[in-house]
């Protein structure tokens, strides 16, 4: 029984601890292989094997020369696979290589703890790439294993039972969650201290120009572009034209922004002068948008924005955008008036929207003038063109190739295409007829989630349409695609295509069974909640939440809140821990006897102080002879357990006391 294990300062690493550490490394490193070169995995396996052989006594720790060589090899490897530039990938790779190489130097408990601490940091770094709520769960798992590994050093391990070893850490982590929530809510958020390299991925999204074929790529992508939650009802689908960019310049093949439009992109000046002759005519809708990073400043809004959160700029083209390219998920708030009118267009802008390329598409120009002469009126011209679209055009995502004269070929030749062809040809036609017109690109519609009524807009909802300046009415939206395929606007892109075309569209879950769709909606709703309430919780949402919680934000109130909530939770937890500590001071037999007395007192028998259990039961039997059998058995078992120490009768006794119901027999 005498236990004298001596503790030294430099405790060597035990077998169990080493095994735990290797397991931890696997969990911690795994998510990073999305970013870092995969040879680091092989490096890890080699180093882990080496360390294990050292533990077995077969190999030695590396010499200084070997270590230098290893480090050199790794540096060369990093240089070859990532280059010399300071990028996010190289930063993470360097950290990981250090973490892996440190393993071979692991000699005592201090090294061990250092490695675990680095693992905590690497765990934090994985959230830069992954911030889905699944990543949070994965992180919790990693954290449990990490903490269990730390606990190994201070606790006798439960050999061969992984869960038993992890469980105490998981309990402590669960107990820590309420405190974390308080800190999460209260600790002020401040801006970045310095600029940091971010992971660079090819971002899909609207580009700053539109040439034939650009949109097909977008439509094949199922990535979420942005999510919207409306304050009140969701406007009907036909009204959901999300504006990203407006193109007024055409070079014969490609639509883009004019120099003026580009200039305005980074300023917020237009708004005041513009708003003076902008008339809002009702049909207001208020919504919050969570936009995914697209690497560009432009965002998504419905025309015409009336007010917007202060991380946005309003642009003359009746759209909003961020001040900087959006490299991380951003959320913003907009109130739009769906009916509006612009009363004035300056000469400069007018000429921009009448601009035609120097040559080409002659047939279209001729026809436009001809039709204008025939109809004599812009409205009639537009309906004639729409009729033409409606009668002889075919909506498809796989149009035949177009020649050099893009619009001529499309309008008078192939007559097959989708939104970019329709909008492009329409605007060119209008301009050729002398009517100011421009192309608007963005997204149309989106999927409404029946769970939380949020709207998810994906890249495949990308759309292009047109605006025509009508004197007295301002810019008026026309969607030539709708003339050909009204379902595109009413029901969404999937419904508007032929079966073969539909194959082109990316579909996330292959199946479209109802159960699947319902699950997907739940999933999306949970995702959106996570993004809104956790990932996008920033200083402004913090302010409003604290205001809601505390009534008013003052350091005093926050301090009182933290102290009372934290202290209260702490006391509660401590009380629970102590309660759980309480020694069971009654032996089982007394507990059973108490149960028996309780049952008997229900039919009027209470034991006297002087009575032993046996005499008490005998007294009961005298009055109620029908209980003889059951009570007799009970008291026999009781005495055998209490005085005879026959532990095997305990189960029998428990069963018979549970079955004993004296009051039922009273007639």
């Amino acid at each position, binding site marked *: *029984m*005498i*236990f*004298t*294990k*001596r*503790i030294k300062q430099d405790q060597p690493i035990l077998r169990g601890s080493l095994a735990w550490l290797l397991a931890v490394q696997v969990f911690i490193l795994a998510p990073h292989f999305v970013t870092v070169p995969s040879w680091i995995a092989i490096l890890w396996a080699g180093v882990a094997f080496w360390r294990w052989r050292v533990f077995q006594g077969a190999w030695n720790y590396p010499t200084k020369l070997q270590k230098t060589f290893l480090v050199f090899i790794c540096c060369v490897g990093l240089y070859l696979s990532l280059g010399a530039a300071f990028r996010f990938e190289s930063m993470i790779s360097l950290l990981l290589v250090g973490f892996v190489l440190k393993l071979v130097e692991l000699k005592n408990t201090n090294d061990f*703890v250092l490695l675990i*601490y680095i693992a*905590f*940091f690497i*765990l*934090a*770094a994985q*959230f*830069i790439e992954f*911030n889905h709520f699944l*990543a*949070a769960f994965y*992180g919790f798992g990693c*954290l449990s294993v990490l903490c269990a590994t*730390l*606990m190994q*050093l*201070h*606790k*006798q391990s439960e050999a061969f039972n992984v869960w038993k070893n992890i469980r105490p*850490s998981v309990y*402590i*982590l669960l*107990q*820590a*969650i*309420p*405190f*974390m929530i308080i*800190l*999460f809510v209260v*600790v002020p*958020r*401040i*801006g*970045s*201290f310095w600029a*940091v390299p971010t992971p660079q991925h090819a971002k899909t999204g609207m580009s700053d120009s539109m040439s034939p074929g650009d949109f097909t790529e977008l439509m094949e992508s199922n990535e979420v572009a942005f999510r919207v939650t409306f304050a009140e009802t969701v406007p009907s689908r036909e009204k959901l034209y999300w504006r990203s960019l407006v193109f007024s310049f055409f070079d014969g093949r490609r639509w883009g922004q004019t120099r003026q439009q580009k200039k305005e992109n980074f300023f917020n000046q237009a708004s005041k002068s513009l708003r003076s002759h902008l008339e809002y005519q009702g049909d207001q809708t208020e919504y919050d948008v969570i936009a995914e990073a697209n690497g560009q400043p432009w965002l998504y809004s419905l025309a015409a924005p009336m007010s917007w959160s202060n991380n946005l700029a309003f642009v003359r083209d009746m759209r909003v955008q961020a001040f900087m390219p959006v490299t*991380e998920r951003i959320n913003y708030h907009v109130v739009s008036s769906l009916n509006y009118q612009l009363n004035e267009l300056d000469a400069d802008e007018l000429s921009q929207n009448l601009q035609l390329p120097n040559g080409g598409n002659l047939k279209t120009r001729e026809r436009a003038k001809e039709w204008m002469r025939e109809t004599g009126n812009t409205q009639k011209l537009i309906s004639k063109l729409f009729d033409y679209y409606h009668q002889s055009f075919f909506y498809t995502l796989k149009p035949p190739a177009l020649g050099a004269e893009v619009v001529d070929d499309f309008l008078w030749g192939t007559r097959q295409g989708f939104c970019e062809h329709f909008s492009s040809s329409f605007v060119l036609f209008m301009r050729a007829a002398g009517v100011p017109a421009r192309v608007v690109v963005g997204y149309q519609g989106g999927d409404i989630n029946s769970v939380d009524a949020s709207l998810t807009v994906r890249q495949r909802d990308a759309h292009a349409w047109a605006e025509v300046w009508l004197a007295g009415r301002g810019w008026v939206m026309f969607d030539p695609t709708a003339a050909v395929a009204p379902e595109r606007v009413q029901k969404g892109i999937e419904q508007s295509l032929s079966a073969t075309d539909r194959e082109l569209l990316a579909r996330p879950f292959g199946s479209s069974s109802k159960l699947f769709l319902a699950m997907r909606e739940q999933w999306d709703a949970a995702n959106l909640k996570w993004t809104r309430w*956790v*990932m*996008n919780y*920033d200083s402004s949402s913090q302010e409003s939440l604290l205001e809601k919680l505390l009534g008013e934000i003052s350091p005093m109130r926050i301090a009182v809140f933290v102290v009372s909530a934290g202290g209260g939770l*702490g006391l509660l*937890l*401590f009380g629970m*821990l*102590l309660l*759980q*500590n*309480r*020694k*069971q001071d009654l032996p089982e037999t007394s507990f059973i006897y108490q149960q028996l007395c309780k049952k008997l007192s229900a039919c009027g028998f209470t034991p006297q102080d002087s009575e032993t259990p046996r005499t008490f039961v005998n007294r009961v039997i005298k009055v109620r002879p029908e209980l003889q059998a059951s009570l007799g058995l009970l008291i026999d078992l009781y005495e055998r357990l209490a005085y005879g120490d026959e532990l095997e009768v305990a189960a029998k006794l428990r069963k018979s006391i549970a079955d004993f119901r004296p009051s039922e027999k009273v007639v």
Partner: protein
Amino acid sequence: MSRLQEYFQRWAARRSPRAGQVTLQHRTIYVFPSKQGLAFLFLILLIWILGTNYQNNLILGLSFFLTSVMLVSVLHAFKNLLGLTFSPEANQYAAVGEMAPFDIQISSAYQISHHGLLLSLDNEESVRADLVAGKPTQIRLNLPAKHRGWLKLPRIVLKSYFPFGLIRAWAYIDLEHRALIFPRPIACEQPPLGAGRGDEGHHLSVQRGDEFQGFQNYQPGSPLSQIAWKQFARGAGMHLKDYRALQSDHYWLDWEMLNARDTELALSNLSYWVNYFADNNVEFGLRLPNLTIDLGMGDVQRLNALTALALFGWVKEGA
């Protein structure tokens, strides 16, 4: 700092006075972040900076989570020591120059496990104990024995870094426990034999050399106490000491026969011969100026004699 520490030590000593049995309560347990815990705080800061720079709530959340884990582990560290009872086991013995063992029983007021209990005496290496499901356990602490007499168990420092090594929970345990330290045995050429009840003792002392029969070859099965270990250690092979002639007699070890100027040396010499006679199963008695141990044999006699030697001139117990 040192003055502050001194003040703390005095204050802590007042809170946990010396007692026959010590149970740890909330007022006698102290908690503070360990060195590892301070490093952990630094780690939390780094993660917080990472999260702030990337404006990533998940990373910030992790830093808050780790902070909370540290907070919660304060409670667990505290709970790990709460309700532990320390009680002394039987007194042990050692000679000067050896390590004096102190056996202590640790039990718990609760049916929970107490992990990684590190017990140490001033600057000594710690001894680790774990209580599984509240089952009592025994530990042995060792302290170098420097002086003969009673050696009081100094204050024990109990530390625990459970659960994650971030928090050090500690307590001071001042237990009424002591070990008896015998004088260091120092050989001298002749045993200080005094006269017995008759005169024959004197003669015996002269004749002693003849009484010793010398060595016999080792025979398997001989009692271990008869093996001539000293000779064996010198590489002379296994021999048996033959005391057949002596065993029939008894001797008096007498203080008076030694040079009384160096009390400690005299006690050491006596202690050597007490061990010698006891090892060889010779009947002997001990005469000290103020105390006489009657004739006896074996380990009981040895204990009595050594106790008398250890406490020779020992004025007050526990002084």
